[in-house]
Every structure is written in C-alpha cells, then in structure tokens.
C-alpha cells in the first residue's frame, strides 16, 4: 500500500492511499494478475455511517468486511491503515487474545472504526490510535482539517514505535508511507518509497490536490499488480472519492 498526506501552499490538507492486496495469493496466468486482487476489485463499496439520523463518517470497504482501512470524519480527521510487518506480528496478538492474555487488545480495523465513531478531533484520534493496545502492528496515517495536521503512527502491539509529523518531516509539506518505517531502507525488491518520493517532489506543493496526488498514486511502482483502488479524501471539504485501479500489461507484481 501507499498512503500520502500533503498540504498545498495555503495549508489545505489532502489524504490519499492506494490499497494493494493479494500478494502470493494465486496468479492468473491468462490475465497476468493476482487472483485475490481481481476478486477484491469487484467488492469495493463506499459507506456512509449514520448515527442519530446524521452522517457520522465515511469509509470504503470490501463488502462483508466490517472494519475500516480508510475513513473520513467531516471537519475532524481522516485515517488510513497500511500493513506493518514485524516479527511480533498478528499471529502473536491472535494467540495472546485466544489465551486471554490480551483481552483488551483491539483488532486493527476495529480500532480504526472505533476511533472514527467516538473521537471528534484530530488530536483525540491521534492519542487513541497511539496508545490503545492492539493485536497487530500497523501504520496509521492520520490527517486533519488544519495546516500541518498530518502524521504517521507506526504501531507495535503495546505502544507507538515511531511517530512522524508532517511539519517536521524531511519534506515538510507531505508524508508518504508504504510498508516500511520512516527513515529506514525499503527491501530492495519492494522499493515503493523512492519512486513515491520522486514523484511527489516532481508534483511540487503548488500542484497538491486530488488530481496531482491521484497521478502520483497512478505511477509505477506505487501502482502495481496488487493495487485495487485509490481513495482521495479532504477533511475540510468532506470530499471522499474511491477510484478503481489496476495495472495491466508490463507492471510490477507488487
């Protein structure tokens, strides 16, 4: 996956992500595509979550999946979740939960949903995502409605391993997260940070917006055979757009 938070010169914050899924889950030799990614593209839906008769937040989901990978709460915050692979990973959390050793641990996508349902500000959401015990590592990418509101929370099961804020990041006006800790080198065979940073730098801050970020996320290798959709969000305007993606032809498998 690739998530991006960027702000334009006037401080308007935009949040977007590519969802990549299906690695090593069956290869279709005719269509040259991952089987699971093909299936998932047919199951993408947008959801208006209603409470007390009013819109509480928006998300997109795979049909039948009740947790949240991407959501936007109007005038409050937006969030995306990217896989974080650690030795002490989801299997460890599940085992602890099964044996009752981690009764309070939250399943990742349900913690994201709980945050959207109960937290009303960017700072409240950040605190909740940083400090709630959970059952698997993850990167939460959180955006707000005001200038400089953007951060990446690298979570381990019991704590925040690394917090990266947009304003103090090397780029200053954007954050880009794939599936590696900020400041560490990507696996050579899976370098989506270098192309992503290059393309964002080519975009420049004056061209930040849905169009510019969508074009970055439509560039290889951030777009690859695993990519199922791009979601574009603006907390300030409540715009939430999901656009189907695929990478036919000569394209990297991940």
């Amino acid at each position, binding site marked *: 996956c690739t998530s991006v938070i960027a702000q334009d010169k006037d401080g308007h914050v935009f949040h977007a992500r590519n969802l990549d899924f299906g690695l090593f889950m*069956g290869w279709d030799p005719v269509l040259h595509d991952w089987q*699971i990614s093909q299936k998932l593209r*047919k*199951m993408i839906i947008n*959801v208006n979550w209603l*409470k007390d008769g009013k819109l509480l937040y928006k998300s997109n989901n795979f049909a039948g999946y009740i947790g949240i990978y991407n959501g936007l709460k109007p005038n409050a915050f937006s969030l995306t979740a990217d896989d974080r692979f650690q030795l002490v990973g989801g299997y460890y959390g599940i085992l602890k939960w099964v044996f009752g050793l981690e009764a309070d641990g939250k399943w990742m996508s349900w913690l994201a949903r709980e945050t959207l*349902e109960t937290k009303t500000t960017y700072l409240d959401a950040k605190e909740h995502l940083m400090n709630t015990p959970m059952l698997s590592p993850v990167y939460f990418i959180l955006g707000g409605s005001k200038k400089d509101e953007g951060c990446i929370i690298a979570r381990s099961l019991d704590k925040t391993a690394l917090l990266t804020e947009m304003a103090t990041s090397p780029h200053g006006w954007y954050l880009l997260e794939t599936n590696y800790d900020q400041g560490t080198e990507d696996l050579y065979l899976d370098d989506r940070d270098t192309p992503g940073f290059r393309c964002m730098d*080519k975009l420049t801050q004056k061209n930040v917006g849905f169009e510019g970020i969508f074009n970055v996320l439509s560039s290889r290798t951030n777009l690859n055979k695993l990519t199922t959709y791009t979601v574009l969000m603006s907390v300030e305007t409540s715009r939430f757009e999901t*656009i*189907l993606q695929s990478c036919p032809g000569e394209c990297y498998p991940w």
Partner: protein
Amino acid sequence: ELPAPFKDHCILDDKQNLYDPSKQFDIKWYDVNLDLPPSERWVQIATANKEHIADLIGVLINLITPWFPNAIDFVDDVFGDLAPKLAQPYRDEIFSIANATGIPLGQITMYNIFYEIFTV
C-alpha cells in the same frame, strides 16, 4: 553487485493526467445505520454482495487446500469457535453477515480478521 533498481515511472513526466473524477461513481454508496441493532446494519450490503464474498473466500480456501487438505473444516471449526468470543457490536454484525449470505460463520470471521492473519 546488485542489478539495476526497479525502473519506476512517474506519469507526471509524461504531462499526463489520469484523474477523472467521474470514475468515482463506478463505486456504489451504501448506508450503515448505527442506530439499528448490529444484526440489521449489514443485511443490505451482505445480501447484495453475497456471491462476490463467497467467490473471494472460495479462492482463498482453494489456495490453501493443496497445502492443507482440511482447510475448510479447519476454518469453519476454529474461526467458528472464535466468533462468539469477539467483542460487540462486531460479533453480532459478523453473525448477521453469515446469516444473510449463507456463508459459514467461520469463513466470515476469518475474512474479517484477515489483517491480523495476513501480517504473519
């Protein structure tokens, strides 16, 4: 010495614009009403998409089966036993999706906690 790095391609180099906002309407919108009991929230979505959900889970199980011949039984039994232990309201929502789609509870549970399994 390592071979040449992956050749990335930023489409901004081509002065291309691939963004077409009208494509957002290819994705259907649904409501999930949190004022309803958990058992009723997902019925419309689950019913409308039950073939796709079954198809996806079927592919997953077909992929596992050559390595693990009793995969279906394992998923149905182990994840079916986990389901009643899940927190509310998620437990009731997962039960209702299994009911609405006719897909075994264990398979719907596995699908819904797949992130944790996948990070293995």
